[in-house]
């Protein structure tokens, strides 16, 4: 077999030389280059989170799902995108021998146009090794500080001073999870296992005081809150396992429950919310989108969605139900005409066009198989 292949190859080379001699003057050797930047246009950032080895943040064209390249943080990565979409922050874990040995935790600052590392430094190795969610790595409103969730399993938040390029403080948040930055100031709100929410403030010198604790807001056993929240002005909105929205004002010293709204009351079929990043909010239309599944039972709160419900946040009512495609996560643009993206359990990104009106209709407008083993989170730059 090898002999036959060699003869064929020699013949091909000989023929090639003949052709080359005939066209030597026209021949221009190709040059190896590197794309300097990604192509222009809006993007979808899709986290393929790895629990062993590097994670990948794949960058897709938001319109055509063109693959533009990726960024490569470490294991169990979290990500946060700057408001202008030009900078991506990741935190991730590096085990010295991949599956064992000493651990370092690195914060990377990525330059999105060139998909390159702008800077990196180590932060506390208490970082939680956990499925990526928006509430586990977030920027304060002035984008001066990063808030990173820790778990040893004792919980705390590492505050990273981006100006100094170093960790500023570790704020213990016992029994609480997630960090939702306040509208202004160096402050965040977190959800606690006793059914309360707590707001923590810190100073530029790294000092911090006691949190402002709310009254009991939800029942962890009867109607637990997902740790995904969307912000509408001074309020954070959370979804509960039973399909209720909880509106919490965190503008004061302590969070205050301002209202609840049932999404599933009177709806047949045992519908309930489910997924990971299961709610997204488009501010220009004041509309929220929620992942839902039917036939809910104890433990189905992470099932992939079979429908996406559109909710008018003015009237706090469901104004549309559309078929889903097994999504676990959602993200929506902040454009006047919203475009919705879903992350499916199979690692696909689904794009939906949104037709607004008295009734909201979602129409699948594209799907891209990322091939991700664990597509955990989507970020958008518009």
């Amino acid at each position, binding site marked *: 077999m090898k002999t036959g292949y060699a003869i064929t190859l020699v013949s091909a080379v000989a023929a090639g030389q003949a052709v080359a001699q005939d066209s030597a003057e026209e021949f221009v050797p190709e040059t190896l280059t590197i794309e300097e930047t990604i192509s222009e246009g809006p993007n979808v950032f899709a986290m393929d*989170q790895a*629990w062993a080895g590097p994670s990948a943040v794949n960058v897709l064209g938001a319109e055509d799902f063109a693959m533009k390249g990726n960024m490569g943080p470490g294991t169990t990565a979290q990500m946060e995108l700057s408001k202008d979409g030009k900078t991506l922050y990741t935190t991730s874990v590096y085990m010295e021998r991949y599956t064992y040995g000493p651990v370092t935790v690195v914060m990377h600052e990525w330059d999105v146009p060139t998909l390159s590392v702008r800077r990196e430094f180590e932060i506390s190795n208490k970082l939680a090794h*956990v*499925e990526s969610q928006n509430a586990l790595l977030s920027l304060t409103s002035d984008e001066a500080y990063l808030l990173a969730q820790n778990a040893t399993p004792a919980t705390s938040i590492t505050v990273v001073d981006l100006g100094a390029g170093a960790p500023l403080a570790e704020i213990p948040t016992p029994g609480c999870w997630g960090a939702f930055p306040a509208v202004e100031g160096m402050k965040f709100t977190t959800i606690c*296992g006793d059914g309360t929410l707590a707001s923590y403030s810190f100073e530029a010198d790294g000092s911090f005081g006691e949190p402002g604790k709310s009254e009991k807001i939800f029942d962890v056993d009867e109607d637990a809150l997902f740790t995904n929240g969307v912000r509408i002005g001074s309020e954070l909105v959370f979804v509960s396992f039973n399909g209720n929205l909880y509106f919490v004002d965190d503008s004061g010293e302590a969070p205050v429950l301002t209202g609840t709204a049932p999404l599933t009351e009177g709806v047949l079929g045992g519908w309930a919310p489910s997924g990971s990043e299961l709610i997204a909010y488009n501010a220009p239309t004041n509309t929220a989108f929620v992942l839902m599944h039917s036939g809910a*039972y104890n433990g*189905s709160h992470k099932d992939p969605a079979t429908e996406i419900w559109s909710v008018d946040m003015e009237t706090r009512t469901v104004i549309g139900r559309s078929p889903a495609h097994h999504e676990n996560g959602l993200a929506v643009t902040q454009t006047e005409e919203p475009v919705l993206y879903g992350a499916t359990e199979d690692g696909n990104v689904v794009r939906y066009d949104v037709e607004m009106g008295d009734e909201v209709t979602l129409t699948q407008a594209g799907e891209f198989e990322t091939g991700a083993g664990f597509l955990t989170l989507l970020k958008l730059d518009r």
Partner: protein
Amino acid sequence: MNKYIDRLLSGLDKAVETSARGSARSHGRRSFLARAGASVLGAAALTPVLPFDRRASAAGAETADECSYWRHCALDGNLCSTSGGSLTSCPPGSSASAVSWVGTCTNPEDGKDYLVSYNDCCGKPTVSSATFCYTSEGERPGYRMGLYNDINWCMANTDKGYHCTVSVVVGLAE
């Protein structure tokens, strides 16, 4: 009784759902302690040998390797019994997680609720052919850390790489 029936039915639903979805997901952990208010448990405390364990073995190892097996009711991870270990033992060369999450699962044989400690085994790669289970009965987010199963419970070990998960019955829930 209604509660028991509800849970049994939900278990059947989950068996179908888990079977359908298990093949689509290869790794990662989406879905950790206790409706009964159990606290994070040390691995050293997790070595009970209940009569019930022997019965489970006698009932056949096959069922224990399926996600629908009753004690896997809140297990998000690869079964150690299909990774070189067993229901209650980590594979050779790995280390047992120092902390764990706990589920409350109903044993259909006696109708009783048991506390099941889901310890991760650590310090090795996952086994590609292992059975991946994704059940979340009674599971809660990270603010109830002891019930949370979306996190790597090897977090408190020296060797933190996730390998697989065991289901160890540590007591009666009621």
